[in-house]
C-alpha cells in the first residue's frame, strides 16, 4: 500500500519534472549553509530566494545544495550538478578554498561558475581554467586600492600585515604588498593564522614588536575580529585596517567594544542611508536589502550580495546566450560565458561591473566605501 503510493508520488514528480524541463535554464547553487563557513553561506542560501525566476520567456530553475563548508562535499555536489543535473551555470560555493577546488571541473565541463567568494585567487591570474569562473565580489585590488588611499590620507608609512594562511589571506598579501610598496608604504611585518585558530598571541606580539603605524587584518567576519581584539589587548595603539571580509555583523558581534574604530573598506550596502541618492548602486542595493528584510526579517550580511549580484549578471547575460543556443546545450553554456565576460556598465548591489577577458570580477571603486565601527554599528567615513 504504502509502497505503491510512494511509487505514484515518484512517477508524478518525474512527470512534473519532465514537463517543466522545457525552455528552462538550470542554475546550480552550492552554499555552505552549515559548518564553519555558515555565517557566509546562510545569507547566500537565503538570497537564492530573491533571484530572478524568469528572464524573457525563459524560466530559471535553481538547484541548491549545502556543502557543509567542506571542500570534498563541494566537489562531490558539483560533480552531481554537472553530471546529473546538467546545469547551465553555477552560483557558489561560499568558501574560497572550496571554490579553488572546483576550477578544473568547471573548465572541463565548460560551464560558467559565478563565485561569491572573497578571494581574487579564483580569477587572478587568469588562465585556461579560470576562464570559466567569474567572481561576484569586488577584487582584492579594488579594495586594496581603497585601503592604501585611506592609509596615505592618514599619513601612515609603515604597515604590519596579518592574514589567513589560506587562499584568502595569501592572495591578499600577494595583491596588497606590491601596491603598498608602490605607494611608498613599508610593510614591516607579515604574519599568518589559521581559520581554526582560537588565539594569535604569538603573531600579535611579533606585529607589535615591529611597531607599524597601522596593521591590516585579512580575515573574514568573526575570524577577522580575533587579531584585532588581541592587538588591542596587547596595547597596540596604531590604526587597524580591515579588508571587505570584515564588513559583517559577526565581526562587531565577536569583537565588541574592542573593534570600535576599525577601518574597513567594503561595500556601501552596510551604510545605505548615509549614501546620497544619486549613487547608481544605491537603488539596486536598496532593492536587495528591502527584499531580504521582507523575507527574512533582518538586514542581509554582505555575503548574500554576491549571490544576488550573480543573479543580476545572469539575468543580463542569459538573453544574449539564448540567441546562440538552447539552454542545456554546450553552445548555450559557452555563449553564456562569453556574454558574462562582455558585461558592460552593469549596476549591481555592490558596484558597477565591467568585465573583460582579463578581469572576471569587474567591480570598480564606485561600489566601495570606507567604513568604521562606531557604537557597535558600521558607519561611513568621509575623507
Amino acid at each position, binding site marked *: 500500500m504504502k509502497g505503491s503510493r510512494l511509487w505514484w508520488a515518484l512517477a508524478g514528480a518525474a512527470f512534473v519534472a519532465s514537463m517543466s524541463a522545457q525552455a528552462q535554464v538550470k542554475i546550480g547553487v552550492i552554499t555552505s549553509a552549515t559548518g564553519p563557513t555558515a555565517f557566509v553561506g546562510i545569507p547566500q542560501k537565503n538570497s537564492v530566494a530573491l533571484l530572478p525566476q524568469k528572464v524573457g520567456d525563459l524560466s530559471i530553475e535553481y538547484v541548491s545544495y549545502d556543502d557543509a563548508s567542506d571542500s570534498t562535499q563541494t566537489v562531490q555536489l558539483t560533480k552531481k550538478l554537472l553530471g546529473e543535473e546538467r546545469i547551465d551555470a553555477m552560483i557558489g560555493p561560499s568558501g574560497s578554498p572550496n571554490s579553488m577546488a572546483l576550477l578544473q571541473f568547471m573548465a572541463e565541463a565548460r560551464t560558467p561558475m559565478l563565485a561569491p567568494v572573497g578571494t581574487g585567487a579564483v580569477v587572478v591570474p587568469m588562465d585556461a581554467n579560470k576562464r570559466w569562473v567569474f567572481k561576484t565580489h569586488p577584487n582584492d585590488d579594488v579594495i586594496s586600492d581603497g585601503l592604501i588611499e585611506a592609509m596615505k590620507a592618514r599619513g601612515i608609512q609603515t604597515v604590519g600585515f596579518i592574514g589567513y594562511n589560506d587562499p584568502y589571506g595569501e592572495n591578499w598579501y600577494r595583491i596588497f604588498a606590491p601596491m603598498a610598496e608602490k605607494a611608498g608604504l613599508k610593510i614591516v611585518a607579515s604574519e599568518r593564522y589559521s581559520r*581554526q585558530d582560537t588565539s594569535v598571541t604569538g603573531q600579535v606580539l611579533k606585529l607589535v614588536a615591529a611597531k607599524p603605524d597601522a596593521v591590516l587584518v585579512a580575515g573574514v567576519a568573526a575570524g577577522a575580529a580575533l587579531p584585532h581584539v588581541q592587538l588591542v589587548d596587547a596595547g597596540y595603539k596604531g590604526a587597524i585596517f580591515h579588508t571587505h571580509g570584515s564588513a559583517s555583523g559577526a565581526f562587531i558581534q565577536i569583537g565588541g567594544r574592542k573593534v570600535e574604530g576599525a577601518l574597513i573598506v567594503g561595500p556601501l550596502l552596510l551604510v545605505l542611508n548615509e549614501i546620497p541618492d544619486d549613487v547608481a548602486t544605491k537603488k539596486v542595493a536598496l532593492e536587495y536589502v528591502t527584499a531580504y528584510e521582507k523575507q527574512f526579517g533582518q538586514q542581509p550580511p554582505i555575503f548574500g550580495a554576491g549571490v544576488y549580484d550573480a543573479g543580476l549578471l545572469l539575468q543580463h547575460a542569459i538573453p544574449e546566450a539564448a540567441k546562440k543556443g538552447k539552454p542545456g546545450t554546450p553552445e548555450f553554456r559557452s555563449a553564456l560565458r562569453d556574454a558574462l565576460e562582455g558585461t558592460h556598465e552593469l549596476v549591481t548591489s555592490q558596484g558597477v561591473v565591467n568585465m573583460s577577458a582579463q578581469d572576471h570580477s569587474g567591480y570598480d571603486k564606485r561600489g566601495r566605501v570606507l567604513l568604521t565601527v562606531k557604537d557597535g554599528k558600521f558607519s561611513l567615513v568621509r575623507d
Partner: protein
Amino acid sequence: MSTPAAQSHPVRVRTLPRGTLALAAFVALLAAAPLVLPEFHVTLLDYIGLYALVALGLVLLTGVAGLTSFGQAAFVGIGAYTSAWLTTVSPLPSWLAWTGGSPWVGLALGLALTLVVAWMLGALTLRLSGHYLPLGTIAWGISLYFLFGNLDVLGGHTGLTGIPSLEAFGFAIRDARDFHYLIWAVLLGAIWLTRNLLDSREGRAIRALKGGAIMAESMGIDTARSKIVAFLIAALFAALSGWMYAHMQRFVNPTPFGLGFGIEYLFMAVIGGASHVWGAVLGAGVVTILKQWLQDLLPALLGQTGNFEVIVFGVLMVLVLQRAPEGLWPIVARVFASRERSAAREVPRAEPLPRRTLPARGTTLLEVRGVTKRYGGLLANHRIDLDVRAGEVLALIGPNGAGKSTLFDCLSGVIAPTEGEVRFLGQRIDAMRARRIARLGMSRTFQHVRLLPTMSVLENVALGAHLRGARGVVAASLHAERAEERRLLAEAARQIERVGLGERMFETAGSLALGQQRLVEIARALASDPCLLLLDEPAAGLRYLEKQALAELLDRLRADGMGVLLVEHDMEFVMGLADRVVVMEFGEKIAEGLPEQVQNDPAVLEAYLGGID
C-alpha cells in the same frame, strides 16, 4: 553466538550452491549497473566500493582479530595524499624524476609509505590492551589528520587540486562508470584474498587472537606477529581505497581522513557484521545509501535544512545494534545458507605430516628443580621438584588451591617461575616464552577450556598443528599453500578421530558439551606432535565410557613413548592410569611415588583425604 556455521568452514566444496548463485547474480548486477543506472547512482556505488574496501580491512582487524581501530581513515589519507602529491607536485623533485608523476608509481609509493607508517604505529599501539588500544588509534588518527591539514606541500586545509585520472593499458579510467569497474574489481579481489587468508593456517592464527593470547601462544602462534599482519593488511586496504578515491575525486583535502570518518568506517563494519567479509560490503552499502536517502528525505519532510540525518541515523544505528548485535550479514546469510548444515562434508585426507622422533622410553623429558612461584606474599608453589620421563604417565594431584594449575603454567611458559629451574629435553625453559617451548615439543590443555567457540572442531584442532606448517601470509591469501593446508587438516582430522569425536568434526566447538570440548583440547594438543603432553583435568565432565576411552587413549600414547603429565581429581581414573603420582598441598609437594604407595601415605591421607583413617 549466532554466527552461522557456514562462515568459518574450510571445506565448503560444493556445499553452497545458493550462495554461489547469489554471488554470481551480485557480480552480474554490478557489471550491468553502469550501463543502466544514472551517473549519480553509479557514483554512489563507487563510494560504497571504496568504503567497503576500508571496512573489509576492519573486518579482518576488528571483527576477526578483535583489535578495534578508529584510525583507518588516516591510512586512506596516506594512500590518497601520496599519489595526489606525486601527480600534482611541480616541479617534481629530482630524486623522483624517474616516476614521471605517474599515478601507478603513486600507488606503489602510497602502499609502501602506509606499510612503514602502519608498521611503526602498530608496533607502538598494538601492544596496548583493553580500551587503551582504541584510544591509541584515535590518537594517531587525529594526529595524521592534522598533519595533512598543516603540511604546506599537501595544500594544508585547502587541499590539492588538479589530480589526474587514471589510465591503464591505453584505457582511460575517467568518469564514475570507468571507476566503477576498477573499484569493484579491486574490492572483489580483496574479498577473495581475505577469505583465502582466513581459511588458512595464518588466518586461523589471526582468528585465534580473539580467544586470548595465552592459548594461541601455547600453540606456538606468534600473536604479536599475527596482530601486526592483520593491522598491515587493513592499512593496505585502506590506502588502496584512498588511492582510487584521490584519482576518482581528483581533489583531496583532509576532511575525509579525519576521526569522524574513522568512526564511520568502524560503524560500517559493525553494522554489516564485523566478523564476515561480506558484512563490510553490506555495511558500507547500508550506511552510504541510508545517509544519502535521509539527506534527501528529511529536509523535505521537516521543511528545513540542517544535519538532521545525523540524528536519525544515530537512532537507527542504535536500534540495529540492539536488534542485531552481530550485524546485518548473518540475517542475510541465513537466506542463502538454510540447507547448508545438512550437506555432507568430506573428511580431509592427505599424506601425514612428518613426525618428530620421540626420545627413547625412559629418557627424562622434564626436570623440575626447586620451582617457586610467589604472588606478593602468597606462595603458590614452593620448591617443587619432579621429573617426567618418556613413556610414563605422571599424575599431579592435590586438593583445590594446591597450586597445580600454577605449576602447569610455570612449566609451559605461560608464567615465569620466581625461582627454580625447569629443563625440557635438557634445555633450560623457565625463562622461555610459551611458543618456544611449544616448538620444542611440549603441548598442553587448559583447565578452563580455551577453544574458539565459533570455529569448527576441525579448525580448532588444526590450530594445534600450527607449527607443523610453514607457508606464509602471501601464499595463504593466494591459496598457493593448499597441499600443506590439506595435510594440516588431515592431521587435525586424524587427531579428532583419535579422541573419538570424528562425528562432530564440522560442528562449531561451542556447540559441544564441556566434556567433549576437553577432548577437543586434547586433540589440539596432539596435533602439534608433542613428546610431552600436559593435561589439566582432562576427565572432568566426561561420562564413564568416555573416561574409559580417554584412559585407553592415554595408555596408547604412553605405549608410543610419549610422556604425560596429568592433573586430575578423579582418583579412580588417576590410580588406574598413572605410573607415578605426585601430591601437592598448599603449594608444596608432600608425597611422590607409585599409586599404591601414595594412597597409603599417612601425610596424603591426612592432608588430601581430609584425615579419614
